[in-house]
């Protein structure tokens, strides 16, 4: 058990190191740097001014030096400065994290609270019209481009209520705070609810076909008891796994949704930082996301082991 944990943690470190290398060099492959963009905004290019600026920002140094500088700083807790705002990177990133976290949390909640019950119903009523209807609805949820769904929601709410749920940093009322997060969260969550529903349904179906369920039925347990006490509990494992994976997958949906609903979270900030070639922001933010994803996977694996006694801590 202990040896397994050590091994897992070591592998996590290797993965994180790999991610740092990949994102660092990938960003350098992207043509153009912050200085090019600043000069584009200034409408001219002066080679001497450009060289000065590159020197000032340290992006004239050999790549390996730049990499070591970054990692060295990270280890000392120095995250560098944003090239654009010239403020400490941490000061730019930290306040934006809770916004995205709240959005993501609500979206996952939405996804689970809609997806799991519907998945169970669909499985229990397999083959009925209700099952078909739910499957079609969930599939269409997966077929709509998420920015399109968001824009439709905004357009419809302006057309119908003359109001729109746009981000408000200092909500006055409880309702306003709710609208700030709930509507965009629903727009992201709709898609992952569809995914959750499908996984719940198929894992539920698989469990329902297991021998012990048949035994329970044969022993005269009521349908409800079989469905909800025995089967659901066991069908939850893959669902938990999938929700874990979705947390990482969600980022893509969040980028688009934060753009449509103009929410100043980290996801949109990351895209803007890529556009500006703001290396310190992109690198640190991607590392942050990677740490979250890697730890989420680790936690899911651990949960899995706890929930399912058949899995033991070996490799």
């Amino acid at each position, binding site marked *: 058990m202990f040896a397994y944990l050590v091994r897992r943690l070591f592998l996590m470190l290797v993965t994180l190191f790999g991610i740092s290398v990949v*994102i660092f060099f990938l960003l350098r492959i992207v043509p153009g740097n912050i200085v090019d963009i600043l000069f584009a905004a200034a409408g001219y290019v002066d080679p001497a001014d450009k060289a000065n600026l590159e020197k000032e920002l340290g992006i004239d140094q050999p790549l390996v030096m730049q990499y070591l500088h970054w990692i060295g700083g990270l280890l000392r807790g120095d995250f560098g400065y944003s090239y654009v705002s010239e403020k400490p990177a941490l000061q730019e990133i930290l306040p934006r994290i809770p916004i995205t976290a709240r959005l993501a949390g609500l979206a996952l909640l939405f996804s689970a609270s809609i997806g799991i019950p519907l998945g169970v119903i669909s499985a229990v009523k397999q083959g009925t019209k209700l099952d078909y209807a739910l499957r079609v609805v969930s599939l269409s949820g*997966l077929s709509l481009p998420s920015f399109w769904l968001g824009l439709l929601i905004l357009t419809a709410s302006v057309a119908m209520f003359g109001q729109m749920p746009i981000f408000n940093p200092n909500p006055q009322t409880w309702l306003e705070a709710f609208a700030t997060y709930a509507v965009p969260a629903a727009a992201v969550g709709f898609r992952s609810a569809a995914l959750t529903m499908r996984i719940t349904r198929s894992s539920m179906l698989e469990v329902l076909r297991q021998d012990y369920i048949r035994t329970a039925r044969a022993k005269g347990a009521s349908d409800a008891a079989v469905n909800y006490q025995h089967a659901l509990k066991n069908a939850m494992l893959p669902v938990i796994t999938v929700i874990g994976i979705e947390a990482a997958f969600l980022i893509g949906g969040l980028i688009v949704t934060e753009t449509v609903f103009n929410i100043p979270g980290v996801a949109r900030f990351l895209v803007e930082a890529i556009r500006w070639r703001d290396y310190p922001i992109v690198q640190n933010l991607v590392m942050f996301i990677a740490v979250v994803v*890697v730890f989420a996977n680790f936690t899911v694996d651990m949960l899995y082991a706890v929930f399912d006694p058949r899995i033991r801590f070996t490799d």
Partner: protein
Amino acid sequence: MAAIDYDLELRRAGAGATGGWRRVMFLAQRHVLGAAGLIIMTLFVFTAIFANVLARFDPLTVDAAHALARPSALHWMGTDSFGRDVFSRIIHGARISLAVGLGSTALGASIGVIVGLTSGYLSGWVDLVFQRVSDILQALPLLVLALVMTAALGPSLPNVIIAIAIPLIPTVARVIRANTLALREQPFVEAAKSIGMSEVRIALRHVLPNTLAPLIVLATAQLGSTILTEASLSFLGLGIPEPYPSWGRMLSESAAEYVRTAPWLVVFPGIAISLAVFGTNLFGDALRDILDPRQRG
């Protein structure tokens, strides 16, 4: 649970013969949704192949005099702000979407298969390295990776395909690897080894064909999401550039300006994307039921 014996079920259902066409009809009846998906997909592929014949106008020709025309007998889906025929652009857009969907899925899947097969079959340090690389790719958000890749390669059709394909590789590789690991222990592989078949030959002749079913299921499921990824990239300004009539860009750009004043510019590309993705998803579901009954649902 064992795989369903369709022939048996067919006989049980009272079908007199087990001929090809009847078999198809039977499957279609059992999988109504899947059949609907297949029809949509066929329509989609047909449109893409015969775009030149089906389109009534050149999708790129600008016509200032007929800009923003409402849908009419002449322009079935109206025209855009450049006076280009929306119907013809949608028809040609099917090509682009098919190229993106098939291209990136095929590219991602084939690299994923090679990686997964090698990794699962060789084990040892090769496996360890591949595993780490796929860990790394999976910890990077897919859309972010695609964004950086398109920025690095420049926006063009092939580059967008590559950018969307790369994040698919680890997903495919994982599934293939797991299957390969399981297959390696199967008696028929042991038998092949014992009669002195070379490792490569075993991998290609015995292991690969047996991983095809999960691969096809996975690839079909990905097909739809690659089309959506392209649309999201377009929305963020990094999709397939003009003049290619990409559905994603048609939708994301006109959505901004014309959602109320010229709704046909928004409605039709939206329907096209959703229908194509919906069709591939329906079909993918049915395919999963048929090929991978364990996952049946």
